[in-house]
């Protein structure tokens, strides 16, 4: 009972608030005149959502929309503002669109923070003449034919966004006046990407400018808060690419982000904030985002891992992999869930990758080479470990070992170099690198052993001194005894 009463009261007050405007309001005289006069604005306004909601021209332009007398309607005393210029345009929109009560009145479910976001964004900065912001609401949304974002006629409908942004961002002369270093080929590149090609074909789901850069609060790539700042990129991409339902029709995996965040690169970028580590765009490109082709994977990885890529490209594996259509680096190292390559990856043990192709029965030579390489690097690691243990023992015994610790750096360096040298897939070159390291560890081992030996040698020296002193003490004692005996006898 109570519930029904409240609902009825609500309905009545709703009607009182809403309907009088429409019921008792007379027609919008501005529109009446201007639609008869002709002219684009009125024609566009016919389809405008504001018109459909009963908002009149006067609500933005001011003036009296009840009189058909032009002078009265468009007089300053009636509040006529004319065509707003500069920031006044946005101010006119903001008057309602930042007012949540007002938006609720019209049953709008859109956010009300657009202006706040715009103010803090790159576009909210002053234009080159210093009189207004770079962008006004109408720059992207149009002035008179504004429709909802999900309406294909809207310039900010997903299929239209690239052109809308490209209006300025592909204009080299225009962009030059703001940031000469900023590229202007994003749209061109975008059209070559998977996202861009599908977008061109009429699919609104793939990413377009707004998906990654945002709409109102667009920030510079160098801004830590930006959705396209390197540490934020994986999250931005995964918004779609980790969403199984969203990606269902495209039949590509959705585990990339999960794998990436576990990987060496993911941990480096996302947890350690190492900006040198690659994000999605480092390997896939920004606007021309496409997974690298099979033959170009080593080039892509090679932008950082230069030596490995160069060695690989010169090795027999390059031709073999390309012919077999095996994705180069990815075959052994995986693409997204790349883990720290340890020595365990090399060789013929269960976890190693070599024996997956070089099986013992089918390719005994390759199998042996892989096995040998693994043995070599294992021997380097163990000799490094034992050298370090000896150095620590010497240090504990009080010997100074800074020089030996320094030399061990070279051993570590040799191990890193041999892991790189693996990619030449050449046993002789590999052995040469490992031998360099083994030479260092054997030097350090012998030096550490010498230090420990010195420690024990001291005890021998002590033994000799103790013998001498004790001998002298004994002789002195006998001498004293003799002196005193003589004294007694005399």
């Amino acid at each position, binding site marked *: 009972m109570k519930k029904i009463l409240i609902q009825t009261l609500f309905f009545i007050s709703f009607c009182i608030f809403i309907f009088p405007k429409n019921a008792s309001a007379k027609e919008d005289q501005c529109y009446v005149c201007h639609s008869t006069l002709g002219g684009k604005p009125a024609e566009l306004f016919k389809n405008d959502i504001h018109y459909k909601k009963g908002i009149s021209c006067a609500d933005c332009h001011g003036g009296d929309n009840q009189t058909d007398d032009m002078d009265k309607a468009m007089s300053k005393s009636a509040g006529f503002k004319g065509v707003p210029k500069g920031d006044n345009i946005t101010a006119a929109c903001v008057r309602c669109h930042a007012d949540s009560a007002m938006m609720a009145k019209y049953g709008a479910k859109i956010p009300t923070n657009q202006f706040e976001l715009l103010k803090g964004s790159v576009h909210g900065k002053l234009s080159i003449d210093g009189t207004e912001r770079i962008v006004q609401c109408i720059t992207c949304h149009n002035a008179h034919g504004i429709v909802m974002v999900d309406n294909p006629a809207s310039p900010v409908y997903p299929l239209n966004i690239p052109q809308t942004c490209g209006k300025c961002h592909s204009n080299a002369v225009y962009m030059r006046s703001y940031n000469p270093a900023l590229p202007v080929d994003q749209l061109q590149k975008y059209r070559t990407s998977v996202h861009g090609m599908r977008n061109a074909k009429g699919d609104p789901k793939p990413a377009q400018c707004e998906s990654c850069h945002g709409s109102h609060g667009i920030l510079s790539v160098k801004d830590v808060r930006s959705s396209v700042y390197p540490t934020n990129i994986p999250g931005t991409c995964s918004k779609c690419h980790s969403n199984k339902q969203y990606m269902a029709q495209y039949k590509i995996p959705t585990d990339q982000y999960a794998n990436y965040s576990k990987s060496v690169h993911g941990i480096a970028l996302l947890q350690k904030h190492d900006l*040198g580590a690659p994000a999605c765009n480092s390997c896939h490109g920004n606007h021309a985002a496409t997974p690298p082709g099979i033959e170009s994977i080593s080039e892509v990885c090679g932008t950082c891992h230069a030596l490995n890529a160069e060695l690989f490209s010169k090795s027999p594996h390059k031709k073999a992999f390309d012919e077999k259509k095996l994705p180069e680096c990815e075959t052994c190292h995986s693409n997204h869930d790349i883990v720290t390559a340890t020595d365990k990856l090399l060789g013929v043990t269960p976890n190693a990758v070599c024996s997956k192709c070089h099986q013992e029965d089918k390719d005994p030579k390759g199998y042996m080479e892989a096995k040998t390489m693994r043995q070599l690097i294992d021997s380097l690691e163990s000799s490094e470990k034992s050298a370090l243990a000896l150095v620590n023992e010497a240090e504990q015994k009080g010997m100074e070992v800074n020089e030996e610790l320094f030399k061990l*750096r070279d051993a570590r360096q040799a191990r890193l170099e041999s892991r790189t040298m693996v990619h030449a897939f050449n046993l002789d070159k590999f052995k040469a690198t490992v031998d360099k390291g083994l030479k260092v560890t054997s030097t350090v081992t012998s030096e550490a052993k010498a230090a420990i030996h010195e420690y024990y040698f001291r005890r021998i020296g002590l033994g*000799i001194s103790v013998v*001498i*002193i004790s001998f002298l003490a004994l*002789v002195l004692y006998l*001498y004293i005894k003799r002196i005193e005996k003589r004294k007694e006898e005399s």
Partner: protein
Amino acid sequence: MNYSNEKPVRKTRRDFLKYLLMGGIAGLVISIFYPIISYLKPPKQNEVEVSSVKVGKLSEIEKDSGRIIRFGNKPVILLRTKTGELKALSAVCTHLNCTVQFRKDLELIWCACHNGKYDLNGRNISGPPPRPLEPYRVVVKGDEVFVSKLT
């Protein structure tokens, strides 16, 4: 009492004991003075090198070359440019601590681990390194080259 017999025996025994005593004293003196003399002889590295390291002769460092030297327990790269200028920088890469090297062909300092590049002033110009290499001071006294910390 037969003095004539006892005295000679005692005399030899006395002399023997005295010889032993002299020998013992000599042994003691040697085992004390040998360490003292060795101690006072200057060791190969003349004095404790904490803030400055002697690298070698200027005439032995080629132009347009670079080498790694040990400073305490850290590596430092010593460069001599084409014009003969000497520079010393920390050789620990600011990305993930690998040891950098001088690349004559690229005319810069290179890190093999992730292709990081620094110019000859240590500034990080390409690749992952986030910071420049720390500079050290180079002083030339006569023909000897010394590297020391900057502060």
